[in-house]
């Protein structure tokens, strides 16, 4: 006995000839009358109105908005190209070195600017 036969045999054996609760019949012709009943419409309208004015929907949910925004970002990223432009390892290292040197240079420039302001103690004997 191969596995295919085994599965087929088991599957067939689980289908009952008749439901255990017996056969039953539902009349679809009677349903429209039930849904169009005035009390039912009033109930549905009332429920919809109460949901619409519910305090839960009165304010924007920041967590939901944030989640939707992030979901949108993630969805977009699938279709976007990879971030930035490719560079060589050597260029990356050169840029890194320049970032360091520029930061140090700019701190000196800032210090010069600050020194030019305020009291010049050299001029105060």
């Amino acid at each position: 006995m191969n596995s295919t036969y085994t599965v087929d045999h088991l599957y067939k054996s689980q289908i009952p000839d008749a439901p255990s609760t017996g056969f039953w019949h539902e009349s679809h012709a009677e349903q429209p009358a039930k849904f169009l009943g005035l009390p039912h419409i009033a109930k549905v309208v009332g429920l919809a109105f109460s949901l619409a004015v519910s305090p839960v929907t009165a304010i924007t949910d920041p967590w939901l908005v944030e989640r939707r925004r992030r979901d949108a970002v993630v969805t977009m990223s699938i279709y976007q190209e990879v971030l930035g432009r490719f560079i060589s390892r050597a260029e990356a290292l050169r840029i890194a070195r320049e970032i360091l040197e520029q930061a140090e240079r700019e701190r000196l420039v800032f210090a010069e600017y600050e020194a030019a302001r305020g009291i010049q103690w050299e001029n105060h004997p």
Partner: protein
Amino acid sequence: MIFEFPDTSMRIRQGDIFVGLPRVDMSLNNVLIVSEAGERVAKWAEIAAKGDPVNIIVPVRPVAAIVATQDCDALRSRDITLLEIRSFKDVERKSKDTTSPKSWKNLITQHARINQKWFYLPPDDRVGFSEKMAVDFMVTLRVPRAELEELRDLRKGRLNTLADEHFRERIGEFFRRYPYDEWYPLDQEELNAYMTEYPDTKPFPWQGAGVADGGVKK
């Protein structure tokens, strides 16, 4: 001078001076992303818009730094914040040509009168300072506390009690500063003198010509 030299077994506290900690400098215009696909350069705004973490290359230089984190946090917090220490002449450019002791005295004792952006540290060979140094309040470093504890041999000294109290108050004063237009209380003549030095100054309504006390024109 104003330093103490704690044993390596002593816990880290505010005013501890380390030599050789990493100062990271990064650019928001040139972020060097590293990935399996290779290196890329992007703007930080693009990375921020995506919201995903990335791995980047950053330049790091070993520098001297002093612990700014207060003592209780230095015992328990995840991170320790330090302030970079550099040559005094680089931090306070007014001193670049200073030579006479009298001029140095004027510069160093400004603290009592002016809320400066630095804290003075005198030379001391035992700490490794061969010249006058300054803590630059504008440049911060952040390192993991537990791993800094393991590097206590890089701690070269600590401010003594008097200097530590002064340092603590100076940090507090520096970060308590608020921006305001310093010319706002000057009268007309003082404002004119001020504007000769800072011509872009915009007078307040009560400082216009013909305006007397209380902002009422006469």
